[in-house]
């Protein structure tokens, strides 16, 4: 299954050894989208690296920005103002909604139902409109900066956000209606692609994928960042470890994101939206590792600085890279249509894998 195929995974190449219809061996080949982001980061100032991290996972550009910025702030010992923390939460959660909607659309496309794709993208357009009004860009935001965010949001933005939530939350059951009660759908997803808990631990699976295997593990709860420690939300957990469970976890996470956004609307304080920093500032020598919860899993950033105004080494631990390693084991003995279902259920994006 070559790097180019009509499904929207990106440029993933799976070398499959088949016996009739069953897969005997699977070898994922990555690297087709390698752009040496980490090397580019070494030749740019700390602020200039942020647009580069946008392209790390372009479906959740805010999260990629944030993990890098968090690492810089930890090294430089900066504390962003509380309003900035809340804005970051709002942006991250909106991005989670956009990413899950994109995942839902493409997941249904892989399974063969072409219509839900259009429904989810219709609503994703509204989220992208929100982003555009906040920072001027629809996909690659360059918004979360060191010490805060690049521009403040105003009350109109928050009102529009609540308007969107009021319109959209009643629609989530519509997405599920198309698929949940459908015997064709759960014949294809229940019992398929089972990832038992020890396999998750072995490989380091994180995010909704491990929550579908029965563990309530979420970086927002275990290692709170931004304003998550002040917010109340549940962690959806399913026990069946199959494709259907991963689908259910993400649909429930959509509702939790809406809940978080509403709390942010209530609680957001006023104040400055960022620290006044120089464009080129020096970060003291040292190294650090931080991780946050992206819609795909646990994304981490290791940052080493040598005291200058450019990073010495910046490495990203991306969840998609880890999850692709699972395919070798998971795709043994499955039929071709199941390959699509399993690959789609892990929500991998190739830019994150190849960096």
């Amino acid at each position, binding site marked *: 299954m070559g790097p180019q195929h009509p499904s929207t995974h990106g440029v993933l190449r799976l070398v499959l050894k088949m016996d009739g219809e069953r897969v005997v061996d699977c070898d994922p080949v990555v690297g087709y989208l390698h752009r040496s982001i980490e090397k580019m980061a070494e030749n740019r100032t700390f602020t200039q690296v942020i647009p580069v991290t946008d392209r790390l996972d372009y479906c959740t550009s805010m999260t990629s920005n944030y993990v890098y910025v968090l690492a810089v702030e930890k090294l430089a010992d900066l504390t962003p103002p509380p309003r900035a923390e809340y804005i970051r939460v709002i942006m991250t959660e909106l991005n989670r909604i956009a990413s899950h909607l994109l995942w839902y659309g493409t997941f249904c496309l892989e399974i063969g139902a072409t219509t839900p794709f*259009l429904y989810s993208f219709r609503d994703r357009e509204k989220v992208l409109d929100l982003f555009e009004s906040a920072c001027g860009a629809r996909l690659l935001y360059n918004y979360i900066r060191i010490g805060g965010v690049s521009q403040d949001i105003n009350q109109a933005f928050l009102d529009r956000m609540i308007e969107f939530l009021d319109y959209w939350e009643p629609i989530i059951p519509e997405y599920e209606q198309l698929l949940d009660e459908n015997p064709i759908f759960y*014949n294809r997803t229940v019992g398929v692609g089972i990832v038992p808990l020890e396999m998750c631990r072995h490989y380091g699976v994180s995010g909704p994928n491990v929550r579908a295997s029965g563990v309530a593990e979420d970086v927002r709860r275990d290692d709170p960042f931004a304003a998550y420690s002040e917010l109340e939300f549940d962690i959806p957990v399913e026990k069946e470890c199959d494709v259907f469970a991963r689908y259910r976890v993400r649909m429930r996470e959509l509702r939790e994101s809406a809940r978080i956004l509403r709390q942010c609307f209530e609680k957001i304080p006023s104040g400055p939206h960022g620290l006044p920093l120089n464009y080129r500032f020096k970060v003291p020598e040292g190294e650090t590792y931080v991780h946050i919860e992206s819609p795909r899993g646990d994304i981490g950033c290791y940052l080493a600085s040598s005291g200058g105004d450019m990073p010495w080494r910046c490495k990203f631990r991306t969840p998609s890279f880890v999850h692709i390693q699972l395919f070798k084991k998971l795709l043994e003995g499955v039929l071709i249509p199941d390959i699509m279902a399993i690959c789609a259920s892990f929500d991998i994006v190739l830019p994150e894998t190849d960096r």
Partner: protein
Amino acid sequence: MFDWVQLSGGDHILDFVTRSTGYQLPGIVIMLVMLALILGFICVSSLVLIWAERKVAARIQNRVGPMMTGPRKWAEFSMWTGGLLQTAADAIKLLLKELIIPSKTDAVPFIAAPILIVTVCVTAFVVIPFAPSFSVSDLNIGVVHVVAISSLTVLSIVMAGWSSNSKYSLLGGLRSAAQMLSYEIPLIFALLGPILLAGGLSMQKMVLAQREYGCWFALPSLLGFLIYYVASIAEVNRPPFDIPEAESELVAGYVSEYSGMMFAMFFLAEFANMFLVCSVAATVFLGGWMVPFMAVPDQPTAGYIVLGALVFFAKTSFLVFIMMWIRWTFPRVRPDHLMNLGWKYLFPLSLLNLVICAGVAVLKDVYHLNGWGISAVSVVSLLLVVLLLQLVRIPRPTSFLEQA
């Protein structure tokens, strides 16, 4: 009492020509004229159906579909009047493309496959009763003729798969052929119910038998209707059973090597086949050209014939619309689930349907029930079947039930 079964479309044409010019046309000329009419009808109906499919898909998916071709004023008026010339534009484009015959392929099956599939379609249309006393030729083996000729489409797919010269598309073509062969069984068995009730195979006789019974055959044979509908979706290779076309996302499907008009032939045949199976369903199960709640007149009148034709088209179009609706709603079925469904569920249910129809036929002969009586008996027996089927319900995953 006028015997509606005796005439056919050719007879009407012969009659018309003889009355207006006094010249007796030889049979072969009438035959050729009728064939040309069917071919024309298939092409026009496919064009319309392709446009309708795109509009229905657009409406379901919250978009508008083709709007740019055709009169702009019409497009501005509403979504349903825009883009009417779209299919004509596509057809012209395909006509103008070069017919590529790859050098490594076997030319004989490569060229024969699209020709065969359209020929099969045209031949099967011969028995469809479009209007009272108006089928091309009302063979006394009507239903079996349609099924037998349609079984040759499998051949066309096999030939197309073979001539693609690629192992994967060959396997894809084989799998599609296996799917179509497996689903012919429930299809035929589902039709056995109405054949039993009507006491014959001729299509016009089926319609008139539904008049005798006083109710559509869809009622005593509801299981048969549903099974026939599902099996025919599989026969026509439509989603959710479009494994051969879905394979083309991963490997080359059986139509991958075709370009231009040859590809258009396959496409045309798919939509014409869809119309064919829906018209058979409308005739056998939904009463064909009979207008509901209106008695069939004793003498053929031009008005009733036209009304009958319109009713027939309405019923067929409704069934075609549902096929399109199903396509855009459901995900694709996995091949082994498909075989499972056909052999383990549809086939036994079609046998059950045969038993129910036999029961209804006996009751009618013994007790001389009228339409309402038969409907009542059918509803009761179907409720019993539904209760029986509760014993084989598919279990649901547990965590699904919690969220509203």
